């Protein structure tokens, strides 16, 4: 495998990968240059020394910044570390890690990870509006711009990405090669165009107007690869799956490409939608997961549903392509692909991950789709082809319906683990040590409390400090039905990463007994069973109340008197924002108080003031320009007149107005604090804040403004 397949600076813990395959780095700072961190798509950063299980599980773990962006971001953020920037000679310009974000309006941003400041931004064209998408496809933002995750080539200090733009009333895809240090185009962008060969030898042209470029880009073999599929399975008689490639550096298209459905005539069998007419598809989309590559540079991806016909078609299949895309060197199509097609249960909703092989160990890949089967593919043998009537050659386990992709890590016991992300729970599976072995279920997560807002499944990554004990953390993101994104961190150590006991607000100690009731364990209150309770999870909510969840994912909260409030929703575990985190009308974002309330600004309502919004609803009569959380977890806001207000639970309590006014309107000072001074971390800012107590009589001021620790301001 070429060195660009590995993120610079990631120090793999697996000796079998081979030192020759790794990119040497004196610094141990991690760059994230591609989707799921590497070309194998393991999702593993095993050079993380700070975010251990203990640290992540502590109250010190907080939101540091919320940066407002103009629209939806589907692409994974990419990171170039300060150490890498310094090694390029840009240390003074980029003293901190830089985050690269690509959005659905065809914007690219470079953001300082330490300050949250947007350092650079550039627009790369007019995105395609939803009304101009095939069938006005609605499973995206109101515009589609950069829909896939870009890829960074650190050796050439560039980032590759593909824009979707509306040009002369036509949708166009362009491949870009952008300089990382100034967001300029290194060479002119290249319009995506291709011709595919059909089964009768005729050709069909790639048509950007019907294709969605959803899978992340892959950089391998000094080529850029991109997959294409449909928008909402629309324009069925035109849309097919494509895998295209370009030479890195020149963006010269590869001479060959893969057209997944090479039928000459659209067929009308097994149309899952009951629609008249015929269709192609076998799309390449994978819920945004990127095609992967193995150590030899072979390219892997999974296709989606089609018309139930196998001849000249590879639906629901895992494909292995030669690096130059000249041929499909192997494939696996499940025996029941036709029924999958008929039910729109395509396997292309999930990605394929190449499992890093241990020394002299078997070589595997795993893939999973909508029907939940997690297949284990032996890469050293044939992938399995298609066995009419079955059984399928690769083994599989049920890991839950999957619009998702797997992740991977090695525990302190040296055992390889695959993390599946089906339905609403992450699971770990032990990777077999022999080629004929199968995946073995190890552990399962609590249900993501709000993963019910979309199709099943989610994405996870893993951080660890090599194979150091208690360092592996599994990170997941899910979306709730009310439009909130939740970040979950799991211990990668089964059953020992969390506390053995937690305490509620009454001082009661809660734990599990070793005694089981079915799949559950008996709940102990101060060491004794209570109310017949049993479950798999005990959680303390933001009000200090104990909840437990059983293996059927049902929740109960303790009523304080030996009984339970049954199935009464889920615990609110939103931790308050750290003191001194600010939301301004220009920064946007939200903060959470000690009661779990989420606060933000709404519309401009009174002069320069904006409505104060509590949990999505405007608070009558409350408006301001800034808001923050004090050390006690109270929410405060200040209006343009300099008046401070604290939320009391049912209304806003104003601080003594005369005293505030006297301070806020001192001669020579603005009637409200300078916005820039609060949004920047220049040394003068902290100086202004630190001097205030000394220059102001020790009186009402310190009592009438929120208490915020100075250290956290910088």
């Amino acid at each position, binding site marked *: 495998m070429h060195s660009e397949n590995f993120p610079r600076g990631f120090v793999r813990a697996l000796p079998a990968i081979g030192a020759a395959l790794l990119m040497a780095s004196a610094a141990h*700072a991690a760059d*994230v240059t591609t989707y799921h961190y590497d070309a194998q798509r393991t999702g593993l*950063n095993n050079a993380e020394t*700070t*975010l251990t*299980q203990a640290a992540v*599980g502590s109250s010190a*773990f*907080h*939101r*540091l910044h919320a940066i407002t*962006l*103009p629209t*939806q*971001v589907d692409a*994974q*953020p990419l990171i170039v*570390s300060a150490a890498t920037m310094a090694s390029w000679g840009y240390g003074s310009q980029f003293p901190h890690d830089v985050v690269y974000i690509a959005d659905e309006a065809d914007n690219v941003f470079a953001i300082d*990870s330490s300050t949250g400041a947007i350092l650079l931004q550039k627009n790369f064209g007019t995105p395609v509006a939803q009304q101009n998408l095939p069938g006005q496809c609605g*499973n995206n*933002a*109101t515009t589609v711009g950069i829909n896939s995750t870009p890829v960074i080539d650190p050796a050439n200090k560039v980032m590759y990405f593909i824009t979707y733009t509306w040009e002369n009333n036509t949708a166009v895809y362009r491949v870009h090669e952008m300089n990382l240090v100034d967001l300029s185009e290194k060479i002119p962008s290249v319009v995506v165009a291709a011709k595919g060969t059909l089964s009768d030898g005729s050709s069909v042209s790639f048509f950007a107007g019907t294709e969605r470029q959803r899978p992340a880009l892959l950089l391998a073999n000094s080529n850029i690869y991109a997959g294409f599929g449909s928008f909402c399975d629309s324009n069925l008689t035109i849309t097919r799956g494509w895998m295209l490639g370009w030479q890195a550096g020149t963006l010269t298209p590869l001479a060959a490409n893969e057209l997944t459905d090479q039928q000459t005539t659209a067929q009308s069998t097994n149309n899952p939608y009951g629609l008249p007419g015929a269709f192609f598809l076998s799309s390449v989309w994978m819920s*945004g997961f990127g095609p992967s590559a193995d150590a030899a540079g072979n390219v892997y991806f999974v296709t989606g549903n089609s018309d139930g016909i196998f001849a000249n078609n590879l639906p629901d299949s895992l494909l292995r392509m030669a690096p130059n895309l000249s041929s499909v060197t192997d494939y696996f199509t499940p025996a029941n692909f036709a029924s999958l097609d008929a039910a729109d249960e395509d396997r292309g909703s999930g990605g394929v991950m190449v499992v890093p092989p241990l020394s002299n160990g078997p070589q595997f890949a795993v893939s999973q789709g909508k029907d939940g089967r997690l297949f284990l593919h032996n890469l050293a043998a044939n992938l399995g082809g298609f066995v009419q009537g079955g059984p399928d050659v690769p083994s599989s386990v049920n890991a839950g319906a999957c619009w998702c992709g797997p992740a991977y890590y090695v525990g302190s016991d040296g055992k390889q683990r695959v993390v599946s992300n089906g339905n609403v729970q*992450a699971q770990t599976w032990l990777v077999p040590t022999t080629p004929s072995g199968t995946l073995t279920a190890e552990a*399962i*997560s*609590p249900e993501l409390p709000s993963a019910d*807002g979309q*199709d099943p499944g989610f*994405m*996870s*990554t893993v951080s660890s400090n090599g194979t150091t004990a208690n360092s592996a*953390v599994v*990170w997941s*993101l899910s979306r709730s039905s009310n439009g909130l*994104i939740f*970040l*979950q*961190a*799991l*211990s990668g150590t089964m*059953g020992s*990463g*969390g*506390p053995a*006991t937690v*305490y509620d607000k009454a*001082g*009661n100690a809660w734990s599990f007994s070793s005694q089981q009731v079915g799949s559950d*364990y008996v709940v102990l209150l*101060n*060491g004794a*069973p209570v109310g017949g309770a049993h479950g*798999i*999870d005990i959680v*303390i909510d933001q009000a200090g109340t104990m909840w437990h969840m059983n293996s059927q994912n049902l929740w109960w909260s303790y009523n304080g008197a030996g009984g339970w409030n049954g199935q009464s929703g889920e615990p609110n575990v939103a*931790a*308050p924002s750290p003191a001194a985190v600010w939301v301004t009308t220009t920064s946007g974002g939200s903060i959470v108080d000690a009661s779990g309330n*989420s606060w933000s600004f709404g519309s401009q309502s009174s002069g320069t003031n904006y409505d104060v919004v509590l949990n999505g609803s405007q608070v009558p009569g409350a408006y301001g320009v800034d808001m923050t959380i004090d050390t006690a977890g109270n929410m405060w806001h200040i209006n343009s007149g300099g008046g401070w207000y604290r939320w009391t639970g049912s209304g806003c309590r104003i601080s003594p107005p005369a005293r505030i006014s006297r301070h806020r309107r001192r001669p020579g000072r603005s009637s409200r604090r300078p916005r820039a001074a609060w949004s920047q971390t220049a040394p003068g800012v902290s100086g202004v804040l630190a001097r205030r107590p000394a220059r102001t009589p020790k009186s009402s001021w310190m009592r009438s403004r929120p208490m915020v620790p100075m*250290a956290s301001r910088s």
Partner: protein
Amino acid sequence: MDAQPAYGAYGVKIVIDKSGTMWHTNSAGGWWYYNGNGGWTGSATPPVVPSTSPAGATVTASGQLPRLQITQAGQWAFPAGNANLVPVVANGKVYVASYGQLTIWGLAN
């Protein structure tokens, strides 16, 4: 669940102290802790009890992946569209990009 009177003790509250010892207090405010041998020792001072665990603190049973944190980290404006978002961890920080927002997470100083 068995519920048997224990060694003549009665009171209004039972707590576990930091060392795991059980204490009870009666309506008059007196404190006793269990001596581990069927008896009680009176105390002029109340037990030192742990503070309430932070929101989200979790105990996970065997065979489970313990949850360390769960928190709101972003938003999504279009319910018809899946959010196939990937959390990114690098150099002590976690990055979450969503609708109109990038949030950065890490350890407070």
